[in-house]
C-alpha cells in the first residue's frame, strides 16, 4: 500500500507541471487572442525561392 505515497507525489508533480505550463501560456499571451491562430494554422509554410518556377494560377473574371 505504501506505493500510494509515491503515486500521490507523482500526481501532484504532474498537476503542478500543468499549472506551470498554464502560467507560461498566460504570460505569452496565448489567451489574449483566441481567434487569429485559428486562421494562421491554415497558411502553408511555403518553400522559399521555388515559388517563382511554379506556373501561376490564373483566374477568369468574366
Amino acid at each position, binding site marked *: *500500500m505504501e506505493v500510494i505515497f509515491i503515486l*500521490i507525489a507523482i500526481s501532484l508533480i504532474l498537476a503542478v507541471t500543468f499549472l506551470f505550463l498554464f502560467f507560461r501560456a498566460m504570460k505569452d499571451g496565448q489567451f489574449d487572442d483566441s481567434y487569429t491562430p485559428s486562421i494562421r494554422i491554415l497558411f502553408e509554410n511555403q518553400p522559399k525561392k521555388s515559388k517563382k518556377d511554379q506556373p501561376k494560377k490564373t483566374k477568369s473574371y468574366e
Partner: protein
Amino acid sequence: MHPVLPSEIQFKCYHCGESCEQEFISVEDKKFCCQGCKLVYEVLSQNDLCEYYELEANPGKSQKDNSSLKNRFDYLDDLDVGQKLLDFKNDLESHITFYIPLIHCASCIWLLENLFQINKSIFSSRVDFIKKKVQVKFLHDQISLKEVVSLLSTLGYEPKINLSDLDHKSKNPVDRKTLTKLGVAGFCFGNMMLFSMPEYFSEAELLGEGFKRLFDYLNVVLSLPIVFYSASDYYTSAWNAVRQRKINMDVPIVLGIIAFFLYSLWEIFVQGNAGYMDSLGGLLFFLLLGKVYQQKTFATLEFDRDYKSYFPIAVTRLIQDREEVIPLFKLQVGDVVLVRDEELIPADALLLSGQADIDYSFVTGEEVPIPKGKGQLIYAGGRQKGEPILLTIQKLPSQGYLTDLWNNESFGKSNKRLLEPLANRISGVFTWTVLSIALVAFVFWMGKDLSIAVKAFTTVLIIACPCALSMSTPFTLGNTLRIFGKGKFYLKNAAVVERLALLDTVVFDKTGTLTDPANASIEYFGEPLSSETKSIIKAMVARSTHPLSNRINLFLGKIHPVHLEKVQELKGAGFLAVYKNQEFRLGSKIFTGVKGDHFSEGGNHVFLNVEGVNLGYFHIQSGLRNGASKVVKGLAEIYELHVLSGDHAHERESLAHQLSHELKFNFEQSPTDKLNYLKALNIKGKNTLMIGDGLNDAGALQESQVGIAITDRVSHFSPASDAILDAESFDRIPNFLAFARNSRLIIKASFGLSFLYNILGISLAVQGLLSPVLCAILMPLSSISVVVFTTLATNFMGVRKGLLHLNYR
C-alpha cells in the same frame, strides 16, 4: 485611354475586386481598376508574395481614394511622437502596435505577417484579427518608423494613428490576472476534491489513519494559494466597502472565507477531523468563474473614445510658404494651417482662403457639407470636402467650441450618481441577519456544550456564505450582455444592465438619431422634368459620392443614364455637364446663379440650370429613421421623453405630428447645453437615458445614467458611451429596455432560490449537524442550480422578447 465599356461586360479588379466600369489597366493577364492597385500588385509580385491573392479572391482595398501626399507621415520623424507611439524600444529594436481598420480576411493576416519578406529589417509582425491590430518589431537602425508606416501604406494597409494613441494606455493586464487566479483556484480545487474523496467513502477506512492525515495536510497546503492569492480581490473590495461604512456582496463572502479557513485549520490540527477545505476551494472556483463570465467584452469596440480618437495626430503648417507637417500638440494659436480634401479641421480657426465645404457628420450626425466663406469661423471636428483651404488657428485644439466639452467637470472623474447594484443593497441586511443567527445559535449552545456552540457559530457563517447569492448577478448579467450582443446592442460592462432596468426618462438627439440621413425626403419644385432631363441628372449624380448626389440618385430610381459629352464635378459647388451641346449645371445656389430666397424652408436645396435658365430645384430634408415613430410611441407609455437638437425650431410641428405630442422638444442646443440639460434632469432625480450619435452629444452621454451611442458601422467612431447600438437595431430599443427589466426580475428570483438553500443550510448548522460531506454537496449544488436557473430564464426571456432565435443556423 481605354474606351468606356458597355455595362454588360464588367471586369473585376484583380486586387480589390471592384468592378472596373470606366477604364482599367492591364498587367499580364490581370486587370486593375487604378494605378494604386497595380502598384500594390507589383510590389507583392516582386517580393514573391502572390500567395496573397490565392488565399482569398480580390483581397485588397481599392486604392483610388488614397491620399498620395508624400510628406503626410513626416510627423513620425518627430522624436516625441515616435517615443509616445512605441510599445518598447532598446538599442537595437523597436516594437509598435498599429491599428489597421482594413484587416478583414485571411490574406490580410498572411501578408502582414510576411512583411519580413519585403524588408528584412522588420523581423516580426503579428496580427490580432479581432482587434484589427498588428504588432511590428523592427530594427530602428535600418528602418525608421516613418518608413515602416509608408511601407504599410504602399501595401494598402495604412495604419490609423490618432491623437489618442499618444496617451499610452496600459494593455489590459487585469483580465489576465483574473484568469490566472481562476486557473490557480481550479488547480487547487480539483486536487483538494481528489484528496477529500476518501473521507466521503467508507472504503477508504481500509487505507488506514496515516493516509487520512496526509490528505488533510495536503488539503491545508493546497488551500493556501486559494486563500492568499485567488481570493485577494475580495479582501480589497470588502475592505474598501467597510472603510466607507458600507456593506457590499464581498463582505459576507470574506466573512465566509475566514470562517471556512480558520475553522477548518482548527478541525484538522486540533480535532484531527477533515475540515471544509475542499468546499472552500469550490466556493472560490465558482465565484471566480462567475467573475470571468461577467467580464464579456466586445474587443472590437471602444467605449471610452473622446475627440482625441477622432482628431488627426498631425497637421500641415505653413511657415513663409513652406509646408511642414507637425504633431497637433505643437500647434499654436495664430499658426496658418493647410487643410486638404477629406482632412479634418484640427482646431477652431478662421478661413483665410479657399472655398470651405465642411462635413460635420461626426459632430452633429448631419452629413451634408456646410459651405463657409472667407473670414468665417470654422469649428474643429469638421471634414473639408473639396479644394485645399488655409486657416488661421484661433484656439488650441483642446480649447475649442466642441472640445471644451471635455474640460467640463463631468469628464473629470466618474462622478455619476450611480445606482447601487441590487446585490449590494441586499447584502447589508443579509450580513447582519446571518451574524445575528450565528450569535443566537452560539449563545443557545454555550450553556450545554461549548464545542457544539463554536461549531454552530462557524458553520452558520460557512453555509450562509452567499456563494449562490453572489453567482446569480454575474451570470444573469453576463447572459443578458451576450443576448444584447446578438441583437447588435453592445454594453460596456454588466453594471449597465441594472441601470437600464431602472430608467424613467429617455432623451433623444434629433439629427442622426431620430432622423436618418439615408432616409431623406426629396421634393422637386419647378418646371416638370422630362425623362431625358432625368437621365442627364442621373448621369451626373451617379458619379459622385456627395451625400446630396446620392440622395437625388436614389430619388430618381432606376433610370438609364445618358452618355454625357463632358462632365465635371466641382467639389463644394456642383456638376457642370455638356449634353447635345447644352450646358447643364446642377448644384448650389451660387454655382447655378440663382437669386432670391423664396424657397421652401429648412433642409438643403440643389438647383438645376440649363444654358443659364433655372429650371427648378430639389428640396432635400432628412427623414425619420425607420421605426422611429414606433419606438417613440412604444417608449412614451412608460418613459418621459425629451428631444434635444442643435437645429432651428422650424421642424417642431412636423416632428411632433410624426412622432408623439408627448415629446418635450428643445432646439438650438449647443453641446454644452445638452450636457447641462441632462444635469438638470439628474438633479430632479430622474434616471436618464441619453441616445445620441455625434461628438456634440458626448457631454450628454457622459452625464446621463446610461448613454447609448448609435452608429451605422459599429467598428467606426462613436463617442464615449455606456453602450453602442447598431443603427439596424434602433427599432428594438423598447425590447432591449424591457429585457433589462426582466433581467432584474431574474436576479431577484434567483436570490429567492439561493435564500432557500441558505435557510436549509442554516437550519442544519444551528443544530450543529453540518458535516464536511453535507457541505461539499450543498455548496456546488446550490451554485450550479442558480447558474442553470439564470441561464434558462434569461434565454427564455430573450426568445420571448424577440432578441434570440431558437434555431441557430
